[in-house]
């Protein structure tokens, strides 16, 4: 089963709520959902849409077609008419929306405003009528929707809840009556419904940060990262997590460094523009050997670019950001599930190697919802590395913050926790942390710091590799494109084309050997990236010598669909 809802309308019309409630209702029924949203950088007006893809198998990418389009305004019909599949339906309120062409079969006029007024006494519940009618159209279980609505509106009080439920019921009934038989697609909840989570990568990262013991977060709002700070600020209150929004991103990252130096796990989340302002301090974290976690949520640049759209244009920037040379790890989750694991890992790597760790995501991953198995929190292990306890610190009157070690990692005391005096320095320094000028110490300290890359290299997980027997090509991607490429491979298989899929979600230190091994004997390598210059392809060649035979690049601010990838692959063949 592969069914797609689409909800379209202006910003402010509630497109997101309708979409999210539909997605949640489907997920609750034990189905898999992949939901993505497309919206403009404005608060009211313009055109937004929300796509909810439903399947009985795991789904990780969007579909280009819709089976039911809920059009909250006329523009939604005009813009998405072509995407509605034959046999699909366009749900709208004929009182508010006047479609100019009559696509008799598809159009389904639901008197939403009228039903809302009649049943709930207010036009405000129009959207719930719409949601209910969509659920009715596919003959889904109203009880599930009702439960979701009750939760969704709980914060607004009992009355609002009841009105929304009534309105939804009216929509549901209307759809059952009018199209109960004629509409061809039905969705049945699984019985018993598997219990799974529905969430976005931003939510997964927020949860992971809290699980990993992050105690301090500073951030400055920037799409698509803002919801991380907002979620942690809200939910972290119960766990004594401090979230601060200071004057700018420079302040942000230096606060994070200060907090990490003083001994708490600390992080920030931003987008490319804000990240730019952090790179000097990234280098500082490298020099002072301070463990910080920075989430870089990419969106299309340069400059302000397209603030509410998606892109993967900052891999090489993240890799080389900051002046001078210092060790770092770069992780780029491929799925929502990954986002959780990778974030926990980021905190551990940061502290084990006492250096900055960057998590790269993008607007797509940050804002799209996926149905996944509940996180197994018992698997979250906190490894703080070489951290001295208060007692150990007390025993070291001559403690040296930057003692030379084989691993490059020096035991870390915390200021004020024990009698050791902890000197962290931004200049080149000796083991005590004091400024030096001589070339021997400089060389030794550089080597000490860079040795940490050897350890980090052993921590980097092997890339995902789905090798297809008789593979004619290997598709290579990183980060958020995983789901789309994965499905493209399946589509190709149906067309009789065998393709392998190599996917990187832990990018630095680069797993060169694993990549080279996977690509050994590959007939054709195709790198697929949501950017214009082929950054992974460039990096892969630098690290392995392997030049991609083809790059499929997309930089229009929109995510890949599996079908798009297949089309691009066929173009040449």
């Amino acid at each position: 089963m592969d069914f797609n809802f689409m909800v379209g309308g202006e910003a402010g019309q509630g497109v997101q709520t309708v979409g999210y409630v539909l997605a949640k209702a489907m997920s609750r029924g034990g189905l898999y959902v992949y939901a993505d949203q497309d919206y403009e950088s404005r608060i009211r007006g313009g055109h937004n849409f929300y796509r909810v893809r439903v399947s009985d198998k795991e789904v990780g990418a969007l579909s280009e077609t819709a089976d039911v389009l809920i059009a909250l305004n006329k523009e939604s019909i005009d813009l998405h008419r072509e995407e509605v599949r034959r046999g699909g339906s366009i749900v709208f309120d004929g009182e508010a929306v006047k479609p100019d062409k009559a696509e008799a079969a598809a159009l389904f006029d639901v008197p939403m405003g009228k039903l809302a007024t009649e049943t709930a006494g207010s036009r405000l519940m129009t959207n719930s009528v719409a949601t209910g009618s969509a659920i009715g159209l596919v003959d889904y279980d109203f009880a599930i929707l009702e439960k979701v609505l009750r939760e969704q509106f709980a914060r607004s009080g009992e009355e609002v809840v009841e009105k929304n439920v009534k309105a939804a019921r009216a929509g549901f009934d209307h759809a059952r009556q009018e199209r109960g038989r004629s509409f061809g697609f039905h969705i049945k909840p699984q019985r018993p419904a598997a219990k799974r989570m529905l969430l976005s990568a931003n939510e997964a990262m927020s949860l992971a940060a809290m699980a990993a013991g992050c105690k301090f977060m500073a951030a400055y709002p920037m799409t698509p990262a803002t919801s991380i700070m907002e979620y942690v600020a809200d939910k972290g209150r119960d766990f004594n997590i401090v979230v601060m929004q200071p004057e700018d991103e420079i302040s942000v990252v230096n606060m994070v460094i200060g907090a990490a130096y003083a001994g708490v796990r600390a992080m920030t989340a931003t987008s490319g523009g804000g990240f730019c302002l952090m790179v000097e301090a990234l280098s500082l974290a490298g020099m002072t050997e301070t463990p910080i976690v920075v989430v870089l949520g990419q969106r299309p640049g340069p400059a302000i670019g397209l603030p509410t759209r998606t892109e993967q244009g900052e891999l090489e920037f993240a890799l080389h950001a900051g002046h001078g040379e210092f060790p770092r790890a770069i992780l780029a989750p491929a799925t929502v599930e990954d986002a959780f694991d990778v974030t926990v890992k980021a905190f551990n790597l940061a502290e084990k190697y006492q250096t900055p760790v960057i998590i790269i995501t993008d607007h797509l991953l940050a804002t799209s919802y996926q149905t996944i198995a509940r996180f197994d929190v018992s698997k979250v292990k906190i490894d703080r590395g070489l951290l001295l306890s208060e007692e150990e610190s007390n025993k070291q009157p001559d403690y040296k913050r930057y003692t030379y070690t084989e691993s490059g990692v020096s035991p870390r005391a915390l200021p004020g926790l024990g009698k050791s005096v902890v000197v962290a320095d931004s200049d080149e320094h000796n083991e005590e942390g004091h400024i030096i000028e001589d070339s021997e110490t400089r060389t030794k300290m550089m080597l000490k710091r860079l040795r940490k890359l050897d350890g980090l290299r052993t921590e980097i997980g092997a890339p995902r590799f789905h090798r297809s027997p008789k593979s004619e090509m290997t598709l290579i991607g990183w980060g958020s494109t995983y789901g789309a490429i994965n499905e493209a491979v399946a589509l190709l298989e149906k067309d009789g084309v065998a393709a392998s899929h190599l996917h990187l979600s832990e990018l630095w230190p680069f797993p060169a050997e694993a990549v080279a091994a996977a690509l050994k004997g590959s007939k054709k390598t195709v790198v697929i990236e949501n950017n214009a210059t082929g950054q992974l392809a460039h990096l892969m060649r630098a690290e392995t010598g392997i030049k991609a035979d083809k790059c499929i690049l997309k930089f229009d601010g929109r995510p890949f669909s599996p079908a798009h990838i297949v089309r691009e692959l066929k173009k040449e063949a």
Partner: protein
Amino acid sequence: MVTLEDYPATTTAWCPGCGNFGILTAVRKALVACNLAPHQVLLVSGIGQAGKLPHYTRVNTLNELHGRALPAATGAKIANHELTVVVVGGDGDGYGEGGNHFIHAMYRNMDMTYIVHDNQVYGLTKGQASPTSDPGFVTKTTLEGAWAQVNPMVLGVATDTSFVARGFAGDIDHLAGLIAAGIQHKGFALIDVLQPCVSFNPRNTYKWYRERVYKLDQDKAYDATDRSAAFVKAQEWGDRVPIGVIYKKDKPTFESSLPAIKKMPLVRQPLDPRQIEPLLDEFM
């Protein structure tokens, strides 16, 4: 009892005769006066001649980037508010590069002491004008003379900062007293220190300052809690330059607004992944 020996002086990279020596001595004296041991204190510094200060005695140190000491100190203080946090930096560092953090840190009113070595010039980079250079001060980058002069005392009063003072590196005991008072003050304490730079500021010398400074605490009529009076006093610069506490106000610290650290410092709190279980339910 903490003594000066707990804060041993070391060799420095400053020029002989530099005003920074006086400030270093005053800081050490103030810490001793407050009976604070080195491990209880965190000195955060920026970059510049002033920024080297923490390296010249034995104390917890975070030597930051140019202009960024205040945010780092903020993060550290939130992580462990049991630490006594003292921030040092130069006038270029604090009022130029770090100007935004300066203004916002004053508004925020965290419990820390900010000592600015104000030599009215960029020392470490060899003598360019700074935000506090006297108007007309000619340097290699201001050949027509420095233009506008930031007055940190006025900005302190304008932001309603809870402790606004000026000291003089040539009067160590008075300065040590101010620093100790700043440390003991609950809230953000700004202490701008007139600091002769013998290498690059031929204008604002020891002599120049000596001829001008006078101590505010000797003026019984002056009420440092009167914001309007402080605004006028803060503007005084020229023939007479007041040193001492210019403005003082009791107000709650930012930390006091954080429920998370009411019971104990963040850094002492246990970490437990399982705490998120109830949150997971919300996504089911």
